[in-house]
């Protein structure tokens, strides 16, 4: 435990270093100087903009991951052609070293750029960017996790509930909306949590594929080679704080949903007598 958490706690503590303090212990008093400085901009990079970009990308990745994973998870409950292709792409995407995926995406977009320049518009700059190549790069990392979680969910799911709904005349959409979704919702929030935090902290996939702008982790990595101030720790603390807030929110929601399900979800014994 100490091995897992010790170093992290060290930097959280260090980010409250006084202005005169250096990068290491002992502490030189306590202050929030470095954290406030972060929000005023450190002068090296525009962290505020990077923060907003990371947040935006994380949210979009989260939504897309949830929707596509749930849809594909539903599809996997039936046999269909190309099932194993999709499965193996997901697994491969998980284990192919991320720098290779990232390099591939950047090459792909470079070639697209060249094509556009050659055939349509000579002044075209680039199609690479946060929401094109960057989004795609993040999705190759989050979708396999989403899909695997969906497998785990539907392994435990009782299909008789759906059959019952259909026997009662529900359309497939109604069945999904009122029967399946409420039951799997806690895990779906889990997928969203995965999607957001994986994207929020993602570095290796973004490194080559994000285009001209940086996300927060990329800035942080850039700082590791140059920085001499505790602001790097302050940045680390802020990033972690966002991660932890999201985790806590998601876990809280899951907990509430589970409670509601336990309280209201069952009508066992009601109306039988």
């Amino acid at each position: 435990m100490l091995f897992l958490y010790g170093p992290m706690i060290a930097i959280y503590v260090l980010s409250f270093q006084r202005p005169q303090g250096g990068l290491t212990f002992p502490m030189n008093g306590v202050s929030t100087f470095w954290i406030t400085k972060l929000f005023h901009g450190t002068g090296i990079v525009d962290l505020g903009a990077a923060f907003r970009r990371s947040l935006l990308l994380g949210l979009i990745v989260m939504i897309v991951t949830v929707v596509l994973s749930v849809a594909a998870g539903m599809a996997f409950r039936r046999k269909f052609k190309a099932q194993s292709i999709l499965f193996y792409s997901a697994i491969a995407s998980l284990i192919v070293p991320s720098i290779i995926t990232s390099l591939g995406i950047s090459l792909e977009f470079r070639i697209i750029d060249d094509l556009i320049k050659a055939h349509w518009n000579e002044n075209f700059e680039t199609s690479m960017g946060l929401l094109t190549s960057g989004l795609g790069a993040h999705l190759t990392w989050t979708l396999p996790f989403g899909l695997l979680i969906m497998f785990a969910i539907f392994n435990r799911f009782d299909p008789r509930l759906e059959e019952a709904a259909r026997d009662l005349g529900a359309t497939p959409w109604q069945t999904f909306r009122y029967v399946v979704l409420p039951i799997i919702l806690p895990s779906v929030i889990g997928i969203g949590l995965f999607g957001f935090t994986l994207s929020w902290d993602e570095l290796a996939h973004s490194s080559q594929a994000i285009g001209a702008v940086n996300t927060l982790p990329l800035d942080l990595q850039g700082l590791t080679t140059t920085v001499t101030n505790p602001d790097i720790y302050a940045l680390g603390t802020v990033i972690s704080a966002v991660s932890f807030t999201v985790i806590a929110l998601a876990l809280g929601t899951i907990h509430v949903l589970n409670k509601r399900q336990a309280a209201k979800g069952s009508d066992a014994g009601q109306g039988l007598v």
Partner: protein
Amino acid sequence: MSEEVLQQASPGLIPGSGTARAAKPTRLSPSCVSWLQAGPMMLVFLAFFLIPLVFVVIVSFWDYNEYQLLPAFSGRGYTDTFEGCIAQLPDLCTIGKTYLKTLKLCFLVWAITLFIGFWVAYFLAFHVRSRTWQMGLSLLCTIPFWTSNVIRMIAWIPLLGRNGLVNSGLMKTGLVNQPLEWLLFSEFSVVLALVHLFTFFMVVPIFNSMIRIDKSLIEAAYDAGATGFQTLANVIIPLAKPGIVIGSIFVITIVMGDFITIGVMGGQQIAAAGKIIETRVNALQFPAAAANAVILLAITFLIITMMSRIVDIKKEL
């Protein structure tokens, strides 16, 4: 059973048999629905994973100059990579040494994470009795995984640095006279950080397999007179093997491709396979980067094929 009853009562109403769907002609066919459901994800993997991989292979055979790609068949990406390798034989050339170093790091990290991961999973699965504690402890192990790798990496710097906690602790206790230089920005710190970051990937799959082991098998082994070690070697390890293999695949592929941890913790001084790719990309030598990516991919693929011979991954998920 209930289906049979229903089938007798009103044949043709059972969903899934196809007849109910056929009754309403407006409804989409099941295979069409499957395509709609799985299609978007397939497209994402196609556009951002499969096609890029193809491009990596194609571009690795292209030519290049200082500022652009030249789409013409050339082996220059590969020849540049292996420059002088044959001339230097039997000594290893730079690229050979780099790959050897990567494999060495990989092996070290794999061995250590396997050892730690196995015992953590063992402890969680067999020693922690209550379900709540099990959940709580595994959640506690999981949380660091949700936060940024770089942060967990730079977290070591104040501990291992020249004036860091470890060094000042050692100096105070009088164990060493001067700060240890090899603690930070060395192979030691790289391995330490990698182990710290990725033990999680070992714990989870192994724990998953272990939790499924029927406890009565272990009791049976004890009743049959097996020692603790014999039970471990003949019952637990074979049954936990799928988890061990999956965890190993994760750790090995991550370490093989890693360039960030090795960059940050090695003080940008240690060469590794992923680092070569990054350097080549920064120099805009894309075909050379792609050639290295192909080589790295081939090695990783080789390792995984060897490992998946041991278990069927698809069956275990």
